[in-house]
């Protein structure tokens, strides 16, 4: 066999040295908790458990506070946890001297209630600049039972996205009530009582069919236009487009 070149021998020694260092660290130095997945997960759990507890949870408050949890559970904010507004409160449980913060400022509530098109349909939203400016929200709304002092005046209160869309559409002149029969009850308990929705093609046809007597309304042949599909499978009723 030919002799290996001198340079290669030297390199091989270095490489062997490096490799054995890595292998040593891997198999001798590293704690098992780093290399064994089972142990690793377990030690991660232990590490997390050692962290100080910040949140007390929603159940414990009612052991000492009676009124607020009861009011909260009965009202619109029933899905909210106390600590969502009052902040982490474990320190308060350990020692009453530590008072949880109460968010009394006006800029707190808009975090959830400012108009944002991505909020679910029906979610009450306001424009914080226009809605009774300058006064703190809790002046008029009890944070634990936030009934509006009077029934919302318009559907826009909770269907802001639809209302804003309709306002720039061809249907801007049509009131919501033209197409939806909504009772006052829906304004107070929206999920308990839902308004009606148009159900058939003839409904739209009442204004748009060729034989209807509306003026300044584009007419179509109700029999053929759009086949047998419902009108709103092609036209969004709150923002109808003709193309």
């Amino acid at each position, binding site marked *: 066999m030919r002799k290996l*070149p001198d340079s290669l021998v030297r390199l091989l020694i270095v490489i062997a040295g490096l490799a054995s260092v890595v292998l040593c660290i891997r198999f001798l130095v590293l704690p098992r908790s780093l290399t064994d997945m089972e142990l690793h997960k377990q030690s991660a759990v232990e590490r997390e458990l050692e962290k100080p507890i910040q949140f007390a949870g929603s159940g414990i408050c009612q052991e000492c506070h009676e009124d607020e949890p009861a009011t909260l559970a009965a009202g619109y904010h029933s899905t909210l946890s106390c600590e969502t507004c009052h902040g982490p409160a474990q320190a308060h449980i350990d020692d009453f001297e530590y008072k949880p913060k109460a968010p009394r400022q006006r800029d707190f509530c808009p975090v959830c209630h400012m108009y944002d098109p*991505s909020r679910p349909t029906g979610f009450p939203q306001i424009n914080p600049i226009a809605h009774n400016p300058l006064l703190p929200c809790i002046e008029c709304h009890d944070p634990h039972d936030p009934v509006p002092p009077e029934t919302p005046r318009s559907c826009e209160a909770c269907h802001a996205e639809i209302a804003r869309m309709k306002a720039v559409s061809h249907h801007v002149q049509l009131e919501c009530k033209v197409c939806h029969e909504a009772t006052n009850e829906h304004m107070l308990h929206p999920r308990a009582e839902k308004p009606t929705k148009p159900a058939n093609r003839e409904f739209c046809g009442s204004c748009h069919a060729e034989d209807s007597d509306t003026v300044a309304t584009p007419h179509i042949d109700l029999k053929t236009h759009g086949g047998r599909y419902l009108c709103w499978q092609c036209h969004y009723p709150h923002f109808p487009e003709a193309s």
Partner: protein
Amino acid sequence: MNLDAISASENILRETTGFVFPNEIDVLWSIMIVVYPYLTGLVAGAFILASLVKIFKVRELQPTYRLSLLTALAFILIAPLPLVLHLGHPERSYEIFLTPQLGSAMAMFGFVYAWYLMVVLLLEIWFEYRRDMVIWARETKFPLSWIYRILSLFSNDLSQEGLNFDKRATRLITIIGIPSAFLLHGYVGFIFGSVKANPWWSSVLMPIVFLFSAIVSGIALVLILYMVLAPMRGEEINMKCLDRVAAFLFYAVIVDFSLEALDFIHRLYESEESIHILSELIVNKLFLSLVVIQILLGMIVPLAMLAGIRIFRANAELRKLIYFVSAILIQLGIFSVRWNVVIGGQMFSKSFRGLTTYKMEMLGLEGLLLALVLLALPLVILAVLLRFFPPTGSPAKDLSAST
């Protein structure tokens, strides 16, 4: 609840338009993740240029061979730093190697990187410089001579056989090196291209586009460095070599340009449902960095200039000027390629109905200042490397001995 955090997030909310999911409001992959593929791209590109000499026997490029290798080394040493800064736990980074997670494409970077640095670059440079280091160890004085001695692993073999073996070894490593360089940067492209939820990234062409833009940027960088360093060392710029580098740069830009155009046309023709938000992204958010800097300044203008001097046979001075200006424009262009991919890909919502804004930090761990430092650091390292490993080699030898 932290009211500061709330009002901060409210401020960002005002910067968004349309529907943006809550976890998309903040652009999490910051400018650090822009710098990272840019740096690795330079590494891969510089190496490919070096390999042209060794494998494809392009002799004219010999004056840039060692410079390219050292450039690649200087940049690869810094390349993982932006990642480490972004992840924020440098003390844990070694765990990647000790507890390998083979299922994670992101974790594989550690191995791709280690392979490229240790098996390709360092070895090739070692074999290339071994002869010089042995001579330097003999000729220099105490601390320096020992540094060379240690670096050459105390080798003392200047026999013809030994030198021949060095040459063969460099060639072999370069042969392994080319696919490795492709792997290194193709890998970075793969990381983006394989994110199937993101239509701006998800494309099989991504690794290839990344690779060619890497080659473009690497060649342009070596060209700039060569033009700056040669006069500093009091050397004449070798026009034959420069013309050749510029020619390769020109071809690489053409290929890169065609690939990107192909990608663009493909997207336009497919017209998937994402096309509307992507066109809005380009028109509203990326107009400057994509249309003006990347395409116009970074590609069309340099292409026109490089083509111009080929047609009109400009004299040497004008050629130098034009090469230099186009190489700098190309660097700028490739940096915006990275920017547009990384930042652009996070500026539109997966709802395809909203855009958000990237607010760059200035001084923080992921801020502009640190990014600039990271971009400058490889040049400092390169200066040190060039000081101790001058590409001209040991005085006692003539240039042809190293090929």
